[in-house]
């Protein structure tokens, strides 16, 4: 059953502008937040069990409490560099409800006592940036941003930074590097950004959805938020469903929702009534689930971890049986090969290597030992690098190979796909 918490007013056009937003209860929560102490907000967020919605699923309240108490200037960054293939929920959130994000950010900034925040939007999102810029101006004009907001004595400035097309900038330290005007290469951890982030200052990076959800946690209280979802995965989550379904799109459901229900009820079932073959549950870096596994999957952090996959950014890619898995892996690996920042050797060389191997299999030049080699390489790429891009390339590789080994072997032996003809594209 879809629960419209964040997405309640997304269909209403006036929700995008400040008057309409205020009419629908906007910025009321901000007033409530200012009546609370920052620590109380942090505790409320902790109690709500909100976990980062960008991919890693780290508890947000805990992340905020890592900030050093030394009076250094803190930054809040909103991660709107939505690059994970299959994900498009943040775009929707920025287009349909910019003020919801801004309000959530002001509350969060107040909680962590940050005077300055940036929304880092991926460069391709030209329209969302325009919407956000307008909303930001409206918020400044209405006195929700700037000096002494609503007479609370809290000053906050917010700015938008437009990325320029690099998946890796969605990684929090990569984003910080990019914001500093460098290549978007992730930074070494430790120190973590909460200790030393943007320009060496303590920095909190949160996803759009996370920050927007903060508003609802403060509005309704942690208990009300916990009502949705499971014990360990509280709240609702926006899932971006794409692929071979009848109604692809973004759906807000509580965590712990069965994946089959999401496909059959919300998305209207498989396109043309085709047979479900596999689902990638959390963006292309999540290991794939076979049709049998899908039946018993519920969409929450724990269940998916148990299935050997992950919730990631909530991008559900549904595949029917017309898709060749070797070909799909090639497409996926092309992406990681293209997006590897080139900093750490295992990722830089490994992503290229496995992409080349899979390409040569698709071109009919594969060798049987290549399949084992792919597994070996992928295993050695896991956990060896600064950021998780290397893992993100290795995990689907392992997933595809272990679960659809017969297709790979068939392709190597016969030089053609088991499923359909894959032509070489220019």
């Amino acid at each position, binding site marked *: 059953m879809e629960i419209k918490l964040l997405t309640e007013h997304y269909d209403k056009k006036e929700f995008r502008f400040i008057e309409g937003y205020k009419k629908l209860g906007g910025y009321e929560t901000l007033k409530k937040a200012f009546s609370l102490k920052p620590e109380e907000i942090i505790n409320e967020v902790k109690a709500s069990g909100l976990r980062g919605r960008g991919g890693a699923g780290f508890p947000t309240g805990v992340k905020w409490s890592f900030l050093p108490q030394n009076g250094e200037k803190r930054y809040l960054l909103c991660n709107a560099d939505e690059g994970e*293939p*299959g994900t498009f929920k943040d775009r929707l959130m920025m287009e349909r409800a910019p003020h919801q994000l801004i309000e959530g950010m002001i509350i969060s900034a107040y909680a962590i006592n940050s005077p300055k925040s940036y929304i880092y939007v*991926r460069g391709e999102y030209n329209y969302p940036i325009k919407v956000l810029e307008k909303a930001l101006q409206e918020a400044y004009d209405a006195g929700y941003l700037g000096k002494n907001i609503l007479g609370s004595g809290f000053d906050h400035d917010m700015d938008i930074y*437009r990325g*320029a097309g690099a998946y890796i900038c969605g990684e929090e330290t990569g984003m910080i590097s990019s914001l500093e005007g460098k*290549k978007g290469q992730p930074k070494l951890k430790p120190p973590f950004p909460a200790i030393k982030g943007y320009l060496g200052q303590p920095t909190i990076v949160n996803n759009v959805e996370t920050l927007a959800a903060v508003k609802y946690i403060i509005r309704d209280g942690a208990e009300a938020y916990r009502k949705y979802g499971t014990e360990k995965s509280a709240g609702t989550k926006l899932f971006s469903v*794409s*692929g071979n379904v009848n109604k692809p799109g973004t759906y807000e459901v509580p965590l712990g929702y069965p994946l089959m229900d999401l496909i059959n009820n919300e998305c209207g079932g498989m396109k043309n009534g085709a047979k479900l073959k596999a689902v990638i549950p959390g963006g292309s870096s999540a290991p794939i689930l076979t049709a049998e596994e899908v039946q018993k999957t519920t969409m929450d952090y724990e269940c998916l971890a148990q299935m050997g996959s992950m919730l990631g950014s909530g991008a559900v*890619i549904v595949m029917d049986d017309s898709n060749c898995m070797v070909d799909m892996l090639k*497409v996926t690996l092309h992406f990681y090969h293209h997006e590897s920042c080139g900093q750490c050797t295992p990722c830089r060389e490994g992503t290229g290597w496995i992409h080349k191997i899979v390409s040569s299999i698709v071109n009919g030049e594969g060798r049987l030992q290549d399949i084992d080699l792919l597994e070996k390489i992928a295993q050695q790429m896991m956990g060896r690098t600064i950021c998780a891009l290397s893992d993100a390339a290795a995990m689907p590789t392992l997933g595809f190979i272990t679960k659809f080994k017969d297709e790979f072997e068939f392709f190597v032996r016969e030089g053609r796909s088991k499923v359909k003809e894959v032509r070489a594209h220019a």
Partner: protein
Amino acid sequence: MFKLSDEGINFVKKELARYETKRSAIIPCLYRVQKENDGWVSPESVSYLSELMELPEAWINEVLNFYTMFNKKPVGKLHVQVCNNISCCMLGARELTDHLCKTFNVKPEEISEDGKITISKVECLGSCDTAPMMQINDDYHENLTPGSAEKIIKGMLNGN
């Protein structure tokens, strides 16, 4: 020799003051240069920008080469970027790209002879529910078929 317009120079000065470090202004300034330089950033313009911003050329060049939205080669008036990522590929993005390349007689990533169009394959543009899709200059065009995509581009080419 490339030079920014006065408006552009003011923009650069404003951006330099806007962020905490001067370096942060590199991306916005490169966007500006790209806009004023027919859609791409030439090496001369990097040197020019380096002088204007008083930052080393290598820093600007690093940024320029890292991000895919800056074009290092001249592009056509219509820069058609077809998403070739997983969701779009499942629904025929590659066939769409091939069709467009054949129709408009260009090779992917290359500028057409008349300089009007460049078709390139890009990674996920965050519009997977409406696959396959393409971005022409700044705008998204979604739920495409080879026929509809061709029609859109032809319409825009004739409109020019």
